[in-house]
């Protein structure tokens, strides 16, 4: 079974969510988990929970974690002993197969670049993220994959092609889609749309016989489910992802603002709640909360710093699954 290193401290040093997620996973699966952070704090929380000790180890990393806005340089300092640094070190040295963190994202990226090796044939890694989308068939994965979402701000056509291969392999492995549809995020559907990079990328993707390229994808088609993998440069991906998150927050905000004003609206919201629960994409999106970093020999999973225990638990399971199966899919 894969060994998953979990940065338990995240950004704020509160270990509860990670420990609760790990404890739950230890009872449900046989994944080996290494919790990294302040050992006394982790132990204190763990003893209040049901857990499987045969699958949980703790590695002490007593230094305060990097905050959300801290410069990543501290993590790279010689002798740094914060949980994120130790977790990356364990993976780089082979003591763990992969890692999950809700820590400082730029620091994670820098540590990955510094310590981990790129997979054979890969020249640039990418951060991927999932987003909710419409699906016409019940069996289809309600989450789409978009990459890159911020690791490489500007990309060339070769990078985008590389990302398409990485996304394709990941979706085959995780969503079990036999032939994932790959789309290129662009401003229009015609092949000549966009700048030189996008035109060249379109041409390369079309030529790639191992990819099921469905052409350019416009912004409004993102949520339509036309593609399983959406490829774009880091800047664009990051903006898209954050805008989706912002829209979700606006929807929740509108609903919660409307509900108290009128009892009929409130009743309507309550009745709609069950339906929303059944249409799981949004719910699953929140529970998923893990962004894989693709391209290295290991696939670290990055979680939102406010991820709840369930999301962190799911991220651990995802990390184990990817670590076990990702290599089997030829890039």
């Amino acid at each position, binding site marked *: 079974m894969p060994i998953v290193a979990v940065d338990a401290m995240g950004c704020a040093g509160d270990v509860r969510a990670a420990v609760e997620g790990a404890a739950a996973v230890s009872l449900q699966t046989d994944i080996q988990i290494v919790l990294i952070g302040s050992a006394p704090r982790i132990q204190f929380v763990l*003893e209040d929970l049901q857990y499987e000790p045969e699958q*949980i180890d703790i590695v002490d990393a007593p230094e305060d974690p990097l905050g959300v806005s801290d410069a990543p340089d501290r993590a790279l300092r010689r002798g740094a002993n914060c949980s994120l640094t130790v977790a990356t070190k364990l993976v780089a040295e082979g003591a763990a197969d992969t890692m999950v963190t809700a820590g400082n994202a730029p620091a994670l990226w820098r540590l990955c670049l510094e310590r981990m090796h790129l997979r054979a044939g890969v020249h640039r890694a990418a951060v991927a993220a999932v987003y909710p989308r419409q699906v016409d068939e019940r069996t289809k994965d309600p989450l789409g994959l978009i990459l890159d979402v911020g690791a490489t701000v500007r990309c060339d056509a070769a990078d985008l092609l590389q990302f398409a291969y990485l996304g394709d392999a990941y979706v085959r492995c995780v969503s079990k889609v036999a032939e994932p549809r790959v789309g290129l995020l662009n401003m229009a559907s015609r092949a000549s749309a966009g700048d030189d990079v996008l035109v060249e990328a379109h041409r390369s993707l079309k030529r790639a016989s191992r990819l099921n390229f469905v052409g350019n994808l416009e912004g409004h088609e993102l949520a339509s489910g036309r593609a399983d993998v959406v490829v774009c440069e880091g800047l664009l991906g990051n903006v898209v992802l954050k805008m989706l998150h912002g829209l979700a927050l606006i929807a929740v905000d509108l609903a919660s603002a409307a509900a108290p004003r009128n009892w009929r609206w409130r009743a309507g919201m309550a009745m709609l709640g069950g339906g929303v629960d059944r249409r799981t994409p949004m719910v699953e999106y929140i529970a998923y909360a893990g962004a894989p970093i693709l391209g290295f020999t290991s696939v670290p999973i990055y979680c939102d710093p406010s991820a709840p225990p369930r999301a962190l638990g799911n991220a651990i399971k995802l990390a184990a699954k990817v670590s076990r199966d990702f290599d089997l899919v030829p890039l």
Partner: protein
Amino acid sequence: MKRVPHHRLTFRWDLDKTYLNTDFHSLRGLVRIPFESAADKVAAPGVAALIRGLRASAQRKGLAVRVLFVSGSPPQIGRAILEKLSMDGIEHDGITFKDQWSRIRRGKFRDLREQIGYKLTELLLDRRREPPGTAEYLFGDDWESDPLIYSLYADVISGAIDREELARILLALHVDPELAVRVDALTEQLNRDDAVRRIFINLAKRTPPRRLDPYGARLVPTFNYLQTAACLFEEGVLDLPAITGVVAALRGDYGYDSRRLVNSLRDIERRKHLSEAGAAVLAKNLCGEAVLPEIMQGRSRWRDLWLRLRRRLLVDDSVFLRGRADYQRLLPILAGK
């Protein structure tokens, strides 16, 4: 507090969920129990090797030893259990079953599910037969009331709780008044002796360990029998060949790999039931016997040496942790069950 040296050892075991992985929490499992043969019964991983090892270790030291079982199951399933013990190569010195039929005949229907009064009575009855200088180790699980019953037993025979307090506790726990009177009578006849060294509770239900804190440091919640064996090794009750046997059984019969074993040992050490020095000695011995990999020895060689030296130099009695259970904290929780 220094202990009086003992020359006899008694190990008292519960059966279901401690020795056997009995499924009595589902209706299907419950119905199946009377029809199960010895071959159908499944022992908890490593438990048979541990019980065999406990007897063998004591005998190698020239100590008199008794292994006893107290069960809340009816005697009708006794034959299958005796066969199972024999199949597992376990020598025992007695098994007590709960005679449910006699309770039904006497119209004592409430007693059918009652465990505290029944087990406490049986334990005290047997304790009267023990000669002075007998140390006891008790083994139960977290499914029913073993932590409470064993703690009460230990505190009663040591004199940590007097008869009045015991009566109050039994009343609060709704123990059948007839049994409470019997327990009181037995308590009166006892010679007080701080005999119970440790109570091991197998966390078959994976109860969070902190929930058992009110029972005091004498009670050790363990997730598997390697953890139990490690604590007993530190106390000198289990010797190296015996704990090696437990590890071998877990590896060979139950598919435990090194990582699961090492994680188990680190967990019991982190929970402070196994001292750092004890863990270092155990790691050195098990790695020396090649039953565990070197990863167990995570500390530096110098720290390891220091820990072992300190263990030798200091007359450290801290492993025999004292203190009665905190019944004031426990009773409101248990009475509300």
